[in-house]
């Protein structure tokens, strides 16, 4: 099943002589169970592509379709709901809310979606455990944990609930290589369980965890590798 589909997607910033074509006619689809790596030099449009895929930014041309819905047809409210329920994001700088505890940060999407605090906390603790965070850390604040622990919190938040599409932009940031690898394994596992994943990385070792690699250059997809597995077996894994 196709979770994400981008059809002839363009993103132009500015106008006329100052126009920056951040993404040009991008076609991409990601199936359930698939992890796709996006690689390319700095400024080639990787973050732009990811933000468009997650509905954080709107294309100036073309369609972004998530689970069969063209994002541009959604009202602001419904788009926000789709993002909270179905899409998980992990960014390089973690984006944790400093005034919320680790558990509250992880529970944030559920609470925003109207779930009771107690129930959201229960699910958040399970999610923190899934990413290997000690329960003792749950009530600390982001500035009281290490970079690796903060990033695990961000991953727990991105994976909480029924995320069908997980987007990660250089998610291993400044983590040491073994901790960075753990983050990749978590992402891989979630995709093996049926999510569709999109991973922006400049690190070839991290791209090694992907099923295929898409290369961007000056806003264009210039090359993309075939998946290692047959599509059928990816689908089987996703069921």
């Amino acid at each position, binding site marked *: 099943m196709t979770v994400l589909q981008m059809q002839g997607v363009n993103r132009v910033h500015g106008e006329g002589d100052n126009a920056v074509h951040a993404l040009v006619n991008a076609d991409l689809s990601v199936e359930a169970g698939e992890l796709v790596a996006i690689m390319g030099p700095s400024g080639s449009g990787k973050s732009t592509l990811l933000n468009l895929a997650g509905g954080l930014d709107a294309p100036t041309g073309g369609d972004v379709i998530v689970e069969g819905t063209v994002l541009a047809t959604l009202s602001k409210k419904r788009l926000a709901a789709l993002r909270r329920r179905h899409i998980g994001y992990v960014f390089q700088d973690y984006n944790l809310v400093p005034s919320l505890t680790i558990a509250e940060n992880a529970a944030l999407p559920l609470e925003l979606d109207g779930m009771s605090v107690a129930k959201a906390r229960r699910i958040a603790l399970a999610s923190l455990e899934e990413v290997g965070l000690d329960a003792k850390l749950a009530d600390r604040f982001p500035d009281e944990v290490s970079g690796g622990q903060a990033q695990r919190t961000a991953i727990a938040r991105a994976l909480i609930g029924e995320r069908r599409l997980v987007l990660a932009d250089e998610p291993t940031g400044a983590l040491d290589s073994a901790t960075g690898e753990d983050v990749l394994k978590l992402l891989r596992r979630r995709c093996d369980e049926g999510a569709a994943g999109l991973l922006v990385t400049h690190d070839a070792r991290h791209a090694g965890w992907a*099923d295929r690699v898409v290369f961007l250059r000056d806003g264009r997809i*210039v090359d993309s590798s075939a998946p290692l597995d047959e599509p059928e077996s990816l689908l089987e894994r996703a069921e």
Partner: protein
Amino acid sequence: MSVKHSLLALLERGPAYGYQLRAAFEGATGSTWPLNIGQVYTTLSRLERDEMVEALPENDSGQRPYRITESGRRHLAGWFASPIRAADRPRDELTIKLALAVTTPGVDVADVIQRQRAATLRTLQEYTRLKADDERPDLAWKLVLESMIFKAEAEVRWLDHTEAIVARAGLPAVPPFEPYDDGAEPSAAPFATPSVPIEEKR
């Protein structure tokens, strides 16, 4: 390391004789891999037998230049177009290939780099799969895989770096070989751009 393909790449700059080829090879690869002149001549005669080069008349000093043929050009384009698999590589061939790619007229260096990068990443994905397979909890095996993964990563980083440098600086202007003087081959047009551009591999 492929002496054969290296010589073909050098002859793409124009006809040359053995000593010129040896010097140019060492120039292109920074004298890292010395080549003996005997190796150059035996390779040239094998290439001539296979009709990838043709011998031109001797010049006054008794040196016989060789010129690449159309078939040699096609063969060279094929070499540049096919990535080297990590498994069957005498490790340095990639370095030599790129050193020659940046100095051989008509080669799309970015394309050579991208083909290699895609192939190396694919190898890396395969190693990662093997590593992630927890059925095999053999630490030594994992270390070997990690070593191959890190080498592949280094290779990709080097390719990225090379691409950035080439994009920034442009390709060097490679001077043609000293013309040889045989007084008899006015049509040799030694240093013209090849009539069949290497881009035709696409």
